């Protein structure tokens, strides 16, 4: 499957098929990770992160493909794995760098808030299914409040709205907790 087809699939909302095709790039990342103190499970994790980052990039305004998707994913994974290793406090000397010449110029900006976004994901995921449902319907599917209220059995739009903000507030509380401890951990090391 060529890169353009994959981009069309993502833009057409067919993430599953696109991702399935993109996993063909995973073994390369696995090799990288294994060679650098990691396990294949770690590779899968960061590869999924990379897929998500790629997905965002495709869906963002003014997207243009500046390199092959495989190159992009590999570059992102390398960055992520380096950060992960740093997080795990491994010596940088073990890091076997491959060519970084083809690294996209905007990668640093793209990954700048990656850590925070992941924490946000975790905070949201820790909420219950219904809370998460409300937030996803509102922020991702952009369903109108009236529809959300009917679908989830709230008394009305107002109730759905209040619930949405309550859930968001709880998510923020948890998010801050996560970010705070992560920062503290970083400072510590």
């Amino acid at each position: 499957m060529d890169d353009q087809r994959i981009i069309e699939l993502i833009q057409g909302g067919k993430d599953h098929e696109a991702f399935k095709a993109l996993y063909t790039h995973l073994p390369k990342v696995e090799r990288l990770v294994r060679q650098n103190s990691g396990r294949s499970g770690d590779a899968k994790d960061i590869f999924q992160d990379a897929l998500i980052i790629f997905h965002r990039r495709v869906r963002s305004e003014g997207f243009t493909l500046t390199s092959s998707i495989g190159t992009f994913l590999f570059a992102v994974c390398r960055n992520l794995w380096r950060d992960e290793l740093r997080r795990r406090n491994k010596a940088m000397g073990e890091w076997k760098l491959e060519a970084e010449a083809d690294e996209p110029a905007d990668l640093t900006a793209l990954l700048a808030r990656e850590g925070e976004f992941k924490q946000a994901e975790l905070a949201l995921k820790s909420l219950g299914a219904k809370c998460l449902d409300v937030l996803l319907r509102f922020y991702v599917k952009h369903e109108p409040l009236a529809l959300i209220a009917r679908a989830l059995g709230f008394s009305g739009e107002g109730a759905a709205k209040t619930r949405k903000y309550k859930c968001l507030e709880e998510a923020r509380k948890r998010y801050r907790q996560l970010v705070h401890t992560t920062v503290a951990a970083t400072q510590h090391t």
Partner: protein
Amino acid sequence: MRDELHLMELVDRYLDGSMNAEERKAFETRASANAELRELIEDQRALREGATRLPVRAAAAKAYRSYRLGKPGPWIGGAVIVAVIITTAFFVLRGTPHFVASERSSTTSDVIASIPSDQVIAEETLVPSAVLSDTLGTHIAPLVMIIDPNRDTTMLTPNGVLLDVPKGSFVDSMGSTVRTAVRITMLEAFDAVTIMKAGLSTMSGDTLLETGGMFYLDATSQGKKVGIATGKALNVMVPADGVSVDMLLYDGAMRPDGIIDWRDPVALPRSLVPVDIRTLDFYPPGYEAKLAELGQNVRNKAFTDSLYYSLDCSDRSRNSIVTQEAMGFPTPTPNSQADTISYLASSSQSDSLDTTTGRCGVDPSKVKAIWDTRFNHTNLATREFEERMRAIHGTCDNAVLDLYVNNLTDDLRTIDRRVAQMGFSSFSEFAKRNDGRVALPAASAERLERIYAEWSRAYAEATRKAQDTFWNEQRKLDVQGQQRARVDGATEQAARQRLLNAETEANLRSVYAQMGYASVPSWVQGGQGGNNATASVRPITLPRVPRSAFNARVSSFGWKNCDVAFSLAYSRRTTNMGSSGKRATINYDPCVVVVPEANTYDQLRVYLLPREGAGYQRMNHVAADRYQENLNGLYTYDVVVLGNKDGRSWYYEYDKVSGLSALTASLAPIKEEELGKRLSRFERTRAVGLLETTKFLAMAAKDAKRQRANMDRVRLRQAVLPVVFPCGKAYGFSSEAPAQESVGDIETALSPQVGSNPEFPGGTSSLFTYLQRNIRVPNTNLGDGRVVVSFIVNIDGSVSDITIARSGGSACDQEAIRVVRGMPRWKPGQISNRTAPIRYNLPVNFKWD
């Protein structure tokens, strides 16, 4: 709150780009001046991004599985059970987690220490993903332990989770027990950050959950997954800051989108906090309150214990109350401080009560067996069980207690349910509380079960034996006391008889003299030789006549006054006699001896010893401190007062008293040899008699104390029996006075089955009140005081034909008759629905106290 939400809405609109230029500018200005608002914007931006990413991540994960499906692999990503403990509000564990079971240091560590170190290997390393497919990405370091499944194993994780693996818990895919080493993998997430980082949800539906922690458990043997055998369970003890109610255990299944779905919540037993069992109260409800009400010292646990443990369903000590009361000894005031041995009830008297069923109440021996430090660190040593113990007493069923004690490794709630099924529905309330158990190795439980069985039996046996020994001894002492009282009574009676004989003769002589007869036949010669006849009485000689003939025939010879004179010594009244112009007078005049504080003496007797006569006689006790008798004008008397108080003999004597006099006796303590000396001035028979009486009084005073103590015991036991054995009523225990049980003994010959018994107005209790108010206990009585008065209640309710069916001594008999005669009209009884005269036997027991 509303402001906060409003602000978030504004931020949303800002991030949506739905603000118009003007609004936007104003908002940005506001944000530039407000760090908090900027923070909110960034947080919300991140969360929105996170929300957007979630479905994408799910898609990525799903695609990964599809991608993997095309490849051969040892596993297929199935749902692995993850357990999480969740309640209904969010909270974060603070500080060092400590065990709910605070006894970790004593019990748990013992268990752990007993595991050979080569059995438990904790590796803080990542394990191959082949084992932990569903926990990848949680970034939680798994703990791996390799154990021998053929033994009980207990492990403690760094977070303080106690994992208890009973032997033979694991089965392979074929269902057969795993014998080879088992590798247990455990992941713990007990603080909020770990939980969130692990990507674990802490909500159920739209309800925020308070998680007490999540853990993941998996086990393999020889590289293959193993299951948990049916009927077996691993026990996981999770540390918590406090015991929350309504903890639920959820099973977690990984959904394809990577979110764990918490489902099938099971009520999690509340862990029990063992306390020192000695601080708990296993007494029947109200037991201590009842003792306090009776004025006993409930703080003295040695006392409350010894009393309680000495009771059993068949407590028959009350039967001895009759014997006690019948003794006729004055009884001193209660000494409530009890020694252990004395609170033992008699059970030697066989009765119909079936103690084996235990349905009158829970056997104190069983309670004694468990109320011991041996049962510390078990379910029983908890406040939760203490509450149940109260209810167990209410069931009166030993089987209920047995169930709790014999299933120490079960949750209390499990046993609660079983008890509820036994028909004690109130225990379902306990079951709802969801109380768990105190972790206890099965071997200890078995040992304690045996202890319970053996010791409760041993205690019951020991109690019974001690009761028998004690009450048999008491009965022996009672009999001895009665024998001594009889001997003393006989001594006194003999002395009085001698006096009567002498006095009669003296009276006779006087009458003869006054009537001018020259001589009196000397039929009493010899026997009265020792008397101190004075010179003023001339020796006279009476013809020898058999005494039995004296009364019958003398009058026919014109000497009819002589028999009057003879009875004077009994009637003790001044009497004038006259015949054929001749007159004779025998004077009897009262004498009163006042003994100050007579009631402080345990025993007190006032004797009159006529100087001219033989023997002696006791003065009548007419009032609290007054003794009175009519003195014969022919005699001069010496007064001897014998007392016993504080374990010492007291003595007083007064010489030469005659009628119409009053004196105050001031007693003083006296030693036996001194008393012997004092009495030796009297004629020998008198001295010996009085000395014997002194000894008897000392013994009686002591014995009365013993009996009093027994009486107190019996009364106390009577009072607490209905509390200790709440179901004992069916067997005749009642909170009423025990004596009432003997009331209403209807003579069956005159009262056929059909009909009703005559009834005292107001019933039996009124009858007793009446008797108590009106009976005056005679001061002297030669008998045991147990009188049964028999009378007929006529159709008009009047009482007639009053007779003594059983004599308790003449004085008591007379008093009983007097009181019965004065009774108000009864409600007559009926025979075959027709009012009829019915004979009624009323027992009246006299007590001296």
